[in-house]
C-alpha cells in the first residue's frame, strides 16, 4: 500500500540534527532504482497515483456494495422478483475479460522491463497492451450483445426488478470498463511518445484488474440471484 516511512537514499551529506530522525514520505520521484529489479523497486515508497488508484477502487467498491444491498433488499421485500436465465454470451465475455487481465499483466511486465532498459526488445513492448485493448473492446461489445439479446426476448430495464438490476449493474460496470479502456489508451499513447511513467502503467493495470475482479463478483451475484 501507499506509504511507509523510511530514510531517503544517502546522498553524501548527512543530517545530524536529532529531530530529523523521522522523515516524511521517503524517496519520491519516478526514477526506477535497482536496475528494473521488481523486488528492489518495491522497497521505495510509491508515488501518490498508487494511493490514488486504491482510493478510486475503494469508492467504486462502495458504490457496487450499495447496489448489492439494494438488490438483496429489493429481492426480499416483495414477491415480484422474476429470475431469468443469463445470456450465454456473458460467460464468453467473462473469459475475454479474464484473458485481457492476463495479457495486460504480460504486457505490463514487458513494458516495465523495456522502460528499465533491462532486456533488448525484439517485439513492440506495447503489443500485449494492444491485445488487452482489443479484448476489452470485445468485452463491451459482448455486453451490448447480451443486452440486445434480452431486449429481443422482451426483457427491458423496467420489465422486472431482476432485469432492472441486471441492466443497471452491467451498464455501470461497462461504463467503468470504458474508463479503463481510456486509461489503457493513455498508457499506450504515452509509451509511444516515450513519456510514460512507470506509475501510470501500474495504476492503469491495477484498475483494469479490478474491473475484472468486479465483473466476476457481479457475475456471481447475478447468477445467484437471477
Amino acid at each position: 500500500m501507499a506509504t511507509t516511512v523510511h530514510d531517503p537514499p544517502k546522498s553524501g551529506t548527512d543530517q545530524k540534527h536529532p529531530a530529523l530522525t523521522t522523515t516524511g514520505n521517503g524517496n519520491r520521484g519516478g526514477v526506477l532504482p535497482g536496475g528494473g529489479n521488481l523486488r528492489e523497486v518495491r522497497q521505495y515508497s510509491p508515488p501518490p497515483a498508487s494511493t490514488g488508484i486504491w482510493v478510486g477502487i475503494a469508492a467504486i467498491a462502495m458504490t457496487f456494495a450499495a447496489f448489492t444491498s439494494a438488490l438483496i433488499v429489493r429481492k426480499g421485500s416483495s414477491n415480484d422478483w422474476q429470475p431469468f436465465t443469463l445470456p450465454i454470451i456473458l460467460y464468453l465475455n467473462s473469459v475475454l475479460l479474464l484473458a485481457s487481465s492476463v495479457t495486460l499483466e504480460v504486457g505490463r511486465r514487458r513494458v516495465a522491463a523495456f522502460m528499465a532498459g533491462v532486456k533488448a526488445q525484439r517485439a513492440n513492448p506495447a503489443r500485449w497492451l494492444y491485445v488487452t485493448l482489443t479484448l476489452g473492446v470485445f468485452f463491451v461489445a459482448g455486453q451490448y450483445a447480451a443486452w440486445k439479446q434480452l431486449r429481443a426476448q422482451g426483457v427491458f430495464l423496467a420489465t422486472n426488478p431482476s432485469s432492472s438490476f441486471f441492466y443497471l449493474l452491467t451498464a455501470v460496470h461497462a461504463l467503468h470498463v470504458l474508463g479503463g479502456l481510456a486509461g489503457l489508451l493513455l498508457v499506450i499513447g504515452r509509451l509511444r511518445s516515450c513519456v510514460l511513467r512507470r506509475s501510470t502503467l501500474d495504476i492503469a493495470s491495477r484498475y483494469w484488474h479490478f474491473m475484472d475482479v468486479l465483473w466476476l463478483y457481479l457475475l456471481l451475484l447475478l447468477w445467484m440471484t437471477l
Partner: protein
Amino acid sequence: MHDMSAQAVQHHAPPTSFIGKHVFSLDHKVIGKQYYALALVAVVIGMVLSWLMRIHLAWPSAKIPLLHYLSANGAAGNVMTPEYYLQLMTMHGTIMVFFVLTTAPFAAFGNYFLPIQVGAEDMPFPHFNMMSFWVTFVSFLVMIASFFVGDGPTLGGWTQYAPLSAIGPASGPGQGMGVVLWASSIAIFCVGQLLGSLNFITTTLDMRTRGMSLWRLPLTAWAWFITSVMGLTAFAVLMPACILLILDHVAGTSFFVASNLVISDQVQPHSGGSTLLWQHLFWFFGHPEVYIAIVPGMGIVSHVLITNMRRPLLSHRVMVYSMGALAVLSYMVYGHHMFVSGMNPFSSLAFSFPTLIITIPSTIVVLIWLGSLYGSKLRINSASLFSLGFISMFISGGVSGFFLAQPSIDIMLHATYFVVGHFHLVMAVAAIFGIFAGTYFWFPKMTGRMMNETLGKIHFWLSFVGAYCIFMPFHYLGLAGNVRRYQAFVDDYLQPLLPVHKFITVAALVTGAAQLVFLYNLVYSRFRGERAADNPWQATSLEWSTPTTPPPFDNFGGQHPVVYHDPYQFGIEASSGDYVMQNSPEEIHTVRDEE
C-alpha cells in the same frame, strides 16, 4: 542535498491568463477560495430561504413582497402556499447541508490549507481537484435550476423519502422534474466529492514533506483526512441511491415504489419496490455526512484554540483517536433515524447502542478542550470566541442526542422540533461557528490583511446569543409534541405554542441580519483591512511559515520546508517567544504529549 520531494507533484507552471489564474485554476489555493465563495453564495440563499420559512410559520397568511417572482404558482399574491413552504424547506436543507456544510469546512479550508500544512506544493492531482470544484458548481446550478423549472423544486425534504420522492408528479407539485433535478444534482455532487476526497487522502498520505510524520500533522490535517475517508465511503453510497431514484422516475423501474399504491383514485403502475430501502441507503450516507460536517470544525476549533491558548491540547493523540472513533462509529448508528420507520424493532435496539456509545468520543473531545483551557493563557479574539462558542453549541446540541439515541424516547420526539433543534445546534450553529473561526483565523494568511476585530466581536455576540434564542426553544416545542415540516400549525394542541414560534422568528431575523456584519467585514477587510504579518497569531504550523502572505504559487517559493517539531510547540522558551514553528531548526525542550 538533493531534495527528492520536488519531483512528486506533476509540476504545473504558474498560469498567466486571467482564466488560468482565477477561473480554471489548478492551484489548490484558488480552488479553496472558489469553494468558499460557492459556500458563501449558498449560505446566503439558504438563510434567505429560512427567513421566508420562519416568516410564514409566524404569520401564515402574510404577503411577502416579491415572493411571486420566485415562483410561478407557489406564491400567488405573494402569499406562500403550503406546497411552496415545503419546497423552500427542502431547498433550504439541501443547500445548507451539501453546499455549505460539506463545502466550506472541508473543501474550502481543506483545499487551501491541507497541502500547505503538510509542506507540499499542491495536491497530487490538480486537474481532478479543479474538476471537483467545477463539478460541485454544476451540481449547484442544477439544484438552483429546479426553482425555475416546471412546478418548482421538490417538496420532499432534503431526505427525499420514497415513495413520495419516487412515485412521480402524482404525489405533489415539484415531484416530477423537481425530484429528477434534485437527484441529478446530488449525484453530480457525489462525483465532485469523490474527486476531492481522492486528493485529500493522497495529499495526507503521500505528499508530506521531510520530517512531517503523521503524528506531526496539525489537527486540522487529521480532521480533513478523516473527513475525506468518510466522504469517500458515504458519497459512494449516496450516488447509487440517487441513480436508483432517477431510474424510478424516468425509466419506469420500481426500486422504491411498492405495488398497489393509489393516488387520486389511480393505481400507480409499480410492481413492488421497497420503501425502507431508500431510507437505509440514504441514512448510511446521511449519518456519516453529519460527521463530515462537524469533524473539520473540530479540527479548526482545536487548531485555533491551541494557538490562542498558547499551549497544545492535553493530549494530541487522544483528540486524533477520538475523531477517528467518531468516524468509524458513524457508520454503525444510521438506523437511529429509522427507529419508528417500520423496520424490525430489534434493529432499532441494535442501532441505539452504538448511538449511545458515540457519546463517549464526543465527550472525550469536549473534555480535552475543557481540560486544555484549564491553566492556559487564553487570548480572546473573534477566532477564539467562535471556537469557544463552538464548544458551547456542541455541548448543547450533543446533549439532546442522549434523548434521540433511545428508541423508547424517540417515540415521543421523532419528527418533532426536538430533532430540528438538535441538528441545528450542531450543524447550523456549531459547524458554522467552526467556519467563522477558520475565517477570522486564516483570513490574514489568505488575503494578507486582518479582519476588523470590533466587527468580528459584534458578529460573535449577536450570533451566539441569537442562535441560542432561535434554537433552544425548538427543544421545548418538541417536548410539547410540535411536529416538524408543518407549514402552519392548525392542530388544537399546537395553538398554545404559536407565541414561541413568533419569538423564534424574530430571533431568526435579527440573527440573520447580524450576519451582514460578517459579510461587510469580509468585503471591507479584503480591500481595506490592516496589513497582516506572515504569522500574526504567532502560530506554529507550516501555513504560517510561507515566504509571502498570501502564499506564493507553489506555497513555499521553491524551497520545501523541513519539519523538525511536533505541530503545537507552545509554552516553551524559544528565540521567537513562547512558541517554535514546525520548520524551525532551533532545538528546544519539547512539550511532551500527555499519553
